């Protein structure tokens, strides 16, 4: 998922495992995925199937996957994917990390399988290292989201960003990781930035996988940045891990506040991130953002609930909302056109509004 691979790679490498990274998501990945996965399944499942096939072709013999207990479909992904890959004749191990259903036994057993004879203390320091890489990546992501629309040399800025990610990936120690990130951010700052302009601000809401993995959302953050729009995402992976896996231990969580914001539009948990999507929509509207874009994989159930409710939020709070669904058939040109149109509209609204104020 997006740049998080950098952290996972560091984690697994520390466990003395050889990591085979699936190649970046390409047309072929999606083609493979949609060929073998069930037709109506959502996009992440298809992409994953494509990723796994490509990784198995490169010689991987173990697949690590997460699980869950519903009601979102994600919880059953691993089992379906195993069926697909086994029917295709691949032989491999699949390690599925399930949140404990009846006890912690399975989880510990699977961690042992991956970890070999590693000690708890070593494992903890590995986790810390991977966590730092994740934080560094996100720092850089946030920086590019801020500087890209303001920069006058956008291509250059993107190049710096990519180099920065690479450097973080290579870094061997915690200090180096943060040094790389800070250095890249400094370079971004120095790239003739215009701090006097106030770019449009858009909140990007929606389903976690589509938000985090640029390969499935046609690089929407970069596209928007190149169009001169500052993007704020509703989901950053460190927040998610903090809220869901570490029970809010590492840093202060805003989740409760966001869920409160979703009232009265959504009054109960709807699975996935449906409620958070609506909560962030209200939050961003209050902070005076210019527009909102909701993204998700086609047929995503929680996001459909959110999509139904968002027009009401838009009406009440006076903020334009657009929903984009992604499946294996969307084309970059179509997405680009719709984004441009949405942004033109926002721009016009903003300038006419400011003219009104001046007059």
């Amino acid at each position, binding site marked *: 998922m997006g740049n998080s691979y950098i952290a996972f790679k560091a984690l697994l490498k520390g466990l003395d495992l050889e990591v085979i990274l699936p190649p970046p998501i390409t047309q072929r990945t999606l083609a493979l995925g949609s060929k073998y*996965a*069930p*037709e*109506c*399944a*959502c996009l992440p499942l298809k992409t994953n199937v494509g990723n796994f*096939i490509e990784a*198995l*072709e490169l010689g991987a013999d173990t697949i690590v996957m997460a*699980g869950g*207990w*519903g*009601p*979102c*479909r994600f*919880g*059953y992904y*691993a*089992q*379906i994917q*195993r*069926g*697909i890959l086994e*029917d*295709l*004749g*691949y032989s491999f191990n699949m390690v599925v990390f*399930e949140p404990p*259903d009846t006890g912690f036994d399975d989880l510990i057993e699977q961690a042992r399988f991956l970890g070999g004879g590693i000690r708890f203390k070593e494992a903890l320091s590995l986790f810390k290292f991977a966590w730092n890489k994740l934080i560094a990546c996100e720092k850089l992501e946030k920086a590019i989201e801020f500087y890209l629309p303001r920069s006058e040399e956008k291509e250059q800025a993107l190049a710096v960003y990519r180099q920065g990610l690479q450097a973080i990936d290579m870094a061997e120690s915690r200090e180096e990781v943060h040094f790389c990130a800070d250095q890249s951010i400094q370079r971004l700052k120095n790239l003739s930035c215009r701090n006097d302009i106030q770019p449009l601000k858009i909140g990007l809401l929606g389903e976690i996988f589509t938000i985090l993995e640029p390969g499935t959302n046609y690089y929407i953050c970069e596209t928007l940045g190149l169009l001169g729009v500052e993007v704020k995402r509703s989901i950053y992976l460190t927040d998610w891990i903090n809220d869901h896996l570490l029970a809010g231990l590492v840093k202060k969580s805003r989740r409760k506040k966001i869920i409160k914001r979703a009232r009265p*539009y*959504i*009054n*109960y*948990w*709807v*699975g*996935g991130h*449906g409620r958070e999507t609506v909560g962030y929509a209200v939050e961003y509207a209050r902070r005076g953002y210019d527009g909102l874009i909701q993204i998700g994989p*086609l*047929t*995503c*159930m*929680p996001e*459909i*609930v959110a*999509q*139904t*409710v968002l*027009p*009401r939020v838009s009406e009440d709070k006076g903020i334009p909302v657009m929903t984009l*669904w992604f499946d294996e058939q969307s084309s970059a040109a179509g997405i680009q056109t719709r984004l441009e149109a949405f942004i033109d509209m926002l721009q016009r609204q903003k300038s006419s509004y400011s003219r009104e104020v001046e007059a």
Partner: protein
Amino acid sequence: MRVGIPQGLFYVYYYPLWKTFFTDLGVEVLSTPPSNRKIIDQGIAHAVDETCFPVKVYFGHIAELCQEEMDYLFVPRFVSVERKHYICPKFMGVPDMVRASFTKLPPLLSPLVDLSRTDKHWRKEIMKVGRHFTWRGKKIEQAYQHGMEELERFRQLTRQGYSPPEALLVWEGKKLPLPGKGDLNIGVLGHGYALYDEAISMGLIKRLREMECNVYMVEMIEKSYIESRAATLPKRVFWTLGRKIAGSALYLHQQTDIDGLIYLACFGCGPDSLIGDLVKRNMQDKPYMMLTVDEHSGEAGINTRLEAFCDMLRRRRINSESNLPTYGQLLYSLQGSVEGP
């Protein structure tokens, strides 16, 4: 006092309970006719494009109901009807979606049905609904008890071979003969609110019966059989209906007298997309057909596919075609699956 109950989604599973409960509390129950074209069109107009067909039809029923005068609209929030199992995210958000999609609504009665962790709160929710009509807690409790008895009577009827909508008619006092005997035995799977709604499934069950088939439904199979088969799956299916479908499919697959299985899926349904695939992979030597429906209305297409399926099943019996593989194998190759790595 009048309460409106749209005839959609879980109506087909719980109507006897709801009806008895409200009637016992002295409330008049107002419902909609079975889905028809007008209702469907209204639903499509009100719901967002991406929702599944049954939810759109449900919206249509609400639009239809809203033309009448009533004091409350009954739109329960179904999260979970048993421990650790869910229905589907859309069901969890139905009252919110309804509130956001309609401008003029009577007050909603939406009790929260969430038994996933504990059934402690459930009693309170029943009381909360009942308190709108009476202050006597005992009366509410009795009404609920009576409702559950009626629900059991209704379920008894489905076990005898009536399809749930037929059973509803019988439960209401109509006399209906049990469906006649045919020569083919076909298991029909799918979410009940789609499968048993004639407008959504395009009369799948009726059509099959007209083609001289005995239709086997999830409701007709002994619960313990379903559960024991479902328990053999590599991972517990965490959707209540999905688990029942998968368990029934595995059970029917083992029965030699069942000729084939049909799975009715809704386009865009989350559980269907995965359970359909799961069933397919476990159905290696039994003919299996997956029908996907949405708001298209091509009845001829459904008819053709059903006729072809039945014809094929009959032919399998009489000549050597019965040796043909049903899934995953090429006709002219004797070994291996179609596509290797």
